């Protein structure tokens, strides 16, 4: 199973690729709504990409109240 750090790194990579943002601009504690300039629907879209990548299913409510990459990665990690 991937380590938490590895999962976090993959989340950051995937977000950077999907939203065409340089990877080095993203840090774990960034507010992804602000850094990626996305709205809540685009955040759900990111969730879908992450599901495909990690081969898991994340209910929408897992994103409720989550706005930084680190917490998002921990939600994914708990389902791996």
């Amino acid at each position, binding site marked *: 199973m991937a380590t938490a750090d590895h999962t976090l790194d993959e989340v950051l990579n995937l977000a950077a690729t999907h939203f065409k943002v340089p990877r080095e601009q993203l840090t774990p504690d960034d*507010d992804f709504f602000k850094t990626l300039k996305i*709205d*809540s629907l685009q955040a759900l879209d990111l969730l*879908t990409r992450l599901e495909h990548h990690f081969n898991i299913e994340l*209910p*929408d409510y897992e994103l409720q109240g989550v*706005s930084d990459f680190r917490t998002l990665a921990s939600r994914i990690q708990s389902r791996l």
Partner: protein
Amino acid sequence: MLNLDEYPSLGAALRAALDRWANETCLIEADRDREKTRLTYSDLKDLALPLARAFEDAEFTPGDRLAIIMTNQSKWLISAYAVFYCGGVLVPLDYKLTPAEQLQLLRHSKARFLVVEYYLWLAIMQSPEFKGLNAIAIVTEAPLGADLAGGHRWEEFRREGDPIFAPRGRNDVACIVYSSGTGGRPKGCVLTHENYLEQCKSLTAWFPFWPGVRYLSILPTNHAIDFMVGFIGPFVCGACVVHLRTLRPEFVRAAFVRYKITYLSLVPLVIKNLERSLKAKFDELSAPKRFVLNRMIAINRFFTQWKPDLPLSRTLLPQVHKAFGGELRAMFTGGAFMEPSTLQFFYDLGIPVANGYGLTEAGTALTLNDFKPFRADTVGKPLPGVELRILKPDAEGIGEVAVHSKTVMSHYLDDPELTAETIVNGWLLTGDLGRFDGTGHLQLFGRKKNMIVTEGGKNIYPEDIENVFEGIPVKEYCIFARNYLWPMGILGREMLVLILRLETGQEFSDDLKNEIIARNRQLPDFKRVGGCSIWDQDFPRTASMKIKRTVLAEEIGKGRNFESAVIEL
């Protein structure tokens, strides 16, 4: 449709509907592409009455309040029907609020019962503010044996035998709906059975439902719009409500096709998302195909300029309509600002968006576009039975919108002072600025009140979020809506601004900015302030030390403009 004039309450009307449409499909619930539940009206009755019987056993009496904190799903509506059957008062709470906010509103509403989804109940139980509940919690979808802190599993909370139907009158309270007030002064709108029955009558006069109609319920059901057009309206007409347990755009798009949706309500954010994805698909077309599409759109625009012609639009633009399931008649939106160009984009495709205007205090909708003809730059005409006035119009005819209608709430819960300020001589003062054009359509130009409505349709009052910034190292602070400080004369581009009065000699340092950013992130994303501004004078205050907000806002607005005053966060 039932003749609603014959019924004294929502409970009585719904009860008649369940018998009249017994064999019609009433609810479909899907999680992503998996259908989980399909119920007829008769099935719904079979699920709701044992629940109502269990409420009775738990000494739920007419007039008792039951709060619901759930995402859109069949158990929301089943529970609500059981409450109305028992003569209860429903308190629909927003599932997107934080647990602390939900607990505050539960206390304020004095709800004796709570129906809540398991994952939301877990969050409430685990929050530091949870010190037990003065209500009986009934938890849906909880795993067997889960610790529910004394709560009951919804699936087991049922009793054999016939519950007694509790008749209610038109002036009895049906719901308490919070339009704001999680951090400041709770605004619980007390709405009567008459409010809802009259609203339902006027809405369905313009947009009828009938057996076979399928309404896709995406807006939260606690929201006034979905409660009406995703529950009461379809039910009293024998139509079907489709619930999706996800808001992922790809599954929403698939649901249109799978369930051949007739109507749905959306917030501007989702409509814009749909527009973006459609335009992206159009851009992928080859030049000749794009040319043909543009010609078909132009022809459709020409022939529908006076009123929609759905058969013609479906013939001219079959691929577009197929992507929406082929049966879509209209999408409803309201509450927040909608770009006229977006509305026009969909109308030209033969998918009319009925843009309206309403507020929780007045039921659901006050005005709606009737498409005769379609006007993208307005929020439509007053619905039947709704009287609107423009108070103290200026030279351009713009003034505060006031409403007189049987749909206007009875009062604010436990707040006679606020009620008296808001409902004056039978007219509800909306705090919104508007004017009527020559054809009787209402145009909105901003707000007189200090609040914003987000693209996601949420009302945010600055006073409700100020406590998050308590203790930041400044002399004093407060929050305003941008439009309240610097009226733009239009809706849209709404934003909250944190006004800071620094200590003598204090600089706006990076540490302070980072502290503000950290506090801001404690708020849900839709409630965050967008910028801050340094103000160089002490805030004017009343004798009891309350900030004189109106005076301060005027001073700030006069002193500087938005661009030079606000530092983006």
